[in-house]
C-alpha cells in the first residue's frame, strides 16, 4: 500500500482509530483481528476469492478446484506438551485446507530466524516439521529463510502456505449452514490453549495438559464419506469453538444453539480453565473441528468421527435455528441460556 489508509472512512462502529498501535489482541482471533481483516486487508486486497471467508481460498484451475491458504506461527515456547511450532506449522495449514474438504498436497515454509538461535533448536523444529508432513502425507516443496538481528524476533517464526485438491462434489463453505442442521465437535475443546498457557506461565497442574495438535484431513475424509452433505467445517483455532461458531452464524445468517452440557472437555483442561476463570469455548484448539451437518446425516457423521482416532470423543453439541441470526446461544447446565460472543482480543485470566 502506498498510501496510509484513511481511517476516518472506516465503517466499523468501533473503529481502530481509538488505538493507534497494534495490540497483542489484534492477533487473538477475536474482534480486534476481525477488524483488521474487515477494514484493512479486505479493502486493500478486495477480491471475491479472499472475501469468501473460507479457511482456504478455492481456486478453479484447469478443471480442478484447488484450495490455497497460508498461516504464520509465533508460538512461545517452541516446544510444548503434545507438539512444537514445527507440528503447528504443518498441521495448521493442512487443517485450513481440510476445512474446505480438500486433500492437502504441497506446502511452502518460510522461516524468520533470530540471530543467536541455536542451530540445534532449529534442527529440532525442522525435524518435527518433516515428521508432521510425513504423517499428514504432504510435501514441503518450497522454502525461504531470513535472519533478523538479535532482539528483533522470538527465536523462530514460521509461515507455511499450502495447496490441496477438492474432490468433485464436495461443497463446503462458511455460508452454507441451514436451519435444522446439527452442529458437531470432533473432540475435547480447549486443550491446545491450556497446554501452551500452563507451560508458558509455569502453571503446574496434577495432569500435564497435552496440545491436541494434529492433521485433520483424514478425519474430514472419513466424515465426508459417511455424511457427504456436510455443509460447513471449521477448525476451532484461535478464539476457540466460540469464535468458529460465531463466524459461521454470521456468514450463514443463521442462529446457533449449543447445549453446554454436551461440550466435550478434558477434566484437566476444565480444571485449569476454572482456576484461571477462562471458558474452554474461547480457548484455542489445533486438532479439533466443528461441523454443520444436515439432520438426516448427523448420526452417520457422529459415528464416522467417533470411529476415527482423532474423533473418539466427538459429540453433537447443538443445532442451527432461524432465530437470532448471527448469534451463538448456549443452553446452560441448569437450564438457562446465554449469548456466547467472540472475545474482543485475548481471553484474560481473572483476578480472583
Amino acid at each position, binding site marked *: 500500500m502506498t498510501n496510509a489508509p484513511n481511517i476516518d472512512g472506516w465503517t466499523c462502529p*468501533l473503529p481502530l482509530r481509538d488505538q493507534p498501535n497494534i*495490540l497483542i489482541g489484534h492477533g487473538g482471533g477475536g474482534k480486534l483481528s476481525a477488524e483488521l481483516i474487515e477494514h484493512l486487508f479486505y479493502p486493500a486486497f478486495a477480491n471475491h476469492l479472499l472475501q469468501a471467508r473460507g479457511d482456504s481460498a478455492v481456486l478453479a484451475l484447469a478443471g480442478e478446484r484447488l484450495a490455497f491458504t497460508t498461516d504464520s506461527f509465533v508460538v512461545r515456547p517452541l516446544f510444548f506438551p503434545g507438539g512444537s511450532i514445527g507440528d503447528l506449522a504443518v498441521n495448521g495449514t493442512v487443517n485450513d485446507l481440510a476445512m474446505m474438504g480438500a486433500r492437502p498436497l504441497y506446502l511452502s515454509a518460510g522461516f524468520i530466524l533470530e540471530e543467536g538461535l541455536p542451530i540445534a533448536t532449529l534442527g529440532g523444529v525442522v525435524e518435527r516439521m518433516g515428521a508432521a508432513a510425513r504423517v499428514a502425507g504432504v510435501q514441503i516443496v518450497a522454502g525461504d529463510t531470513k535472519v533478523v538481528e538479535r532482539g528483533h524476533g522470538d527465536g523462530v517464526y514460521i509461515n507455511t502456505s499450502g495447496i490441496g485438491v477438492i474432490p468433485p462434489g464436495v461443497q463446503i463453505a462458511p455460508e452454507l449452514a441451514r436451519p435444522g442442521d446439527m452442529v458437531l465437535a470432533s473432540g475435547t475443546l480447549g486443550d491446545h490453549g491450556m497446554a501452551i498457557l500452563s507451560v508458558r506461565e509455569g502453571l503446574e497442574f496434577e495432569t500435564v495438559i497435552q496440545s491436541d495438535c494434529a492433521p485433520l484431513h483424514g478425519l474430514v475424509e472419513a466424515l465426508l464419506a459417511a455424511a457427504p452433505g456436510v455443509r460447513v467445517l471449521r477448525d476451532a483455532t484461535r478464539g476457540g469453538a466460540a469464535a468458529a461458531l460465531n463466524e459461521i452464524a454470521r456468514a450463514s445468517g443463521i442462529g446457533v444453539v449449543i447445549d453446554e452440557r454436551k461440550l466435550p472437555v478434558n477434566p484437566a483442561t476444565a480444571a485449569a480453565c476454572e482456576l484461571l476463570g477462562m471458558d474452554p469455548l474461547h480457548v484455542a484448539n489445533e486438532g479439533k473441528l466443528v461441523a454443520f451437518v444436515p439432520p438426516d446425516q448427523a448420526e452417520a457423521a457422529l459415528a464416522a468421527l467417533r470411529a476415527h482416532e482423532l474423533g473418539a470423543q466427538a459429540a453433537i453439541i447443538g443445532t442451527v435455528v432461524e432465530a437470532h441470526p448471527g448469534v451463538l446461544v448456549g443452553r446452560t447446565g441448569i437450564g438457562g441460556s446465554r*449469548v456466547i460472543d467472540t472475545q474482543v482480543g485475548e481471553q484474560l485470566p481473572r483476578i480472583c
Partner: protein
Amino acid sequence: MKYLSEFRDEALAARLFDEIAAITTRPWAIMEVCGGQTHSIIRNGVDQLLPPEIELIHGPGCPVCVTPLETIDRALAIAARPDVIFCSFGDMLRVPGSGQDLFGVRSAGGDVRIVYSPLDAVKLARENPASEVVFFAIGFETTAPANAMAVLQAGREGLANFSILASHVLVPPAMEAILQAPGNRVQAFLAAGHVCSVMGTWQYGPLAGRYHTPVVVTGFEPLDVLEGIRMAVAQLETGRAEVENAYARAVSFEGNRSAQAVLDQVFEVCDRKWRGIGEIPSSGWRLRERYRAFDAAERFDVAGIVTTESALCRSGDVLRGHLKPNQCPAFGKECTPRRPLGATMVSSEGACAAYFQYRRVESQEAIYRRDAESDERT
C-alpha cells in the same frame, strides 16, 4: 471435574427453583455482593428461572471495577516508565484510565506483564535487579493475603526494587454504605463467599442486626447461588435478619486466622475511594508505616494526574444497584467491551460486561422461547 459438576446439576437446581418459588409470597430485592456471583448468575441464567418476585441487584464486588480512576492513571504512568516492569493480573490490563489502558502502554513500549500470583512479581524483581518491579495490588480481602505475603517475602530477601501499587478494598463497609444510601432498595445480601473464607462470617453479625438485613454467605456455582437465595428468601419471608452460611465447604465463622494475621501485620485500614461510588470511610487497606518503602505510590512521584471520567458512563448507578446495566443509555452503543467507558464493562466480573457478553442481543427469555418453539418443530 466431578467436584464442580455436582454444583451445576440441573435436577438439583430445578428442585431449588421450586423451593424458592414455593416460599416466595411477595417481591424481594436481594443483592449479590460479589462480581463472581454476578458473572455466575448471568452466565448460567439463574435470574431467568427465578420467580418474578425475586429481583437480584448486582453489587459492587468487582475489584477491577471499583479501583479508582486516579489509581489506574497512576498505574499507567508508572507502567510507562522505562525503568519499570509493571505486573498485573490479566483483567486489569483492559481497564480504561483517563486516556488509555495497560495494553496501550504495552504497545507503546512499556514493559507490562500478566502474572498469576504476586509472588511471580517478587521472582521477577529477584531476576531483574536493574529494573523496578511494581505489582498492581488490587482486590478485596480475597487477594490481599497473597499481596501481603509478597511484601513480606520481598522484605525478607531485601529486594529494594520491588513495590506494590496497593488499592485494596473491604467489603463490609461497602455493604453498610449501600444500606445507608438514600433510596436503598436492598433487603438482603448474598455475602461474598471467598472474602468470607479469608475473613470469616463474624464480621457481618452487627450489620445484620443493626440494619435488620439478612446476610447469607454464598458461593459461586449455580447451586451455591440458588441455596443462598433460598436461605435469604426464607429469612425475609419469616422476618428474620441473621447471618447464615450457605458456603460452609469453604467458609467458617472465624475465617483463615493465619491470613488475617499476615494482613494485620502488613496493612492498616484507611478511607478509600471506590470508582463509581465515592469515598467510603474505613473501606480500604494501605501498607503500614514500616512497609511504606514497598509502596509504589510513594516511590514513584507521578505528578500531574488529572482524571476525566466519561460523562455518559453510569457505572456508579449500576454499582449501587440503581440501574441494570442494559438500562444505561450508553450500554452496547458508546460503551462495549471493545471500547469500555467504565470499568464495569471490562472485567468478566463487571455487571455491564456480564450483561453485554450474555444478554445484549435481545431479551434472553425471547431467545429461549423461540428456541423452545423451534425445538418443538424439529
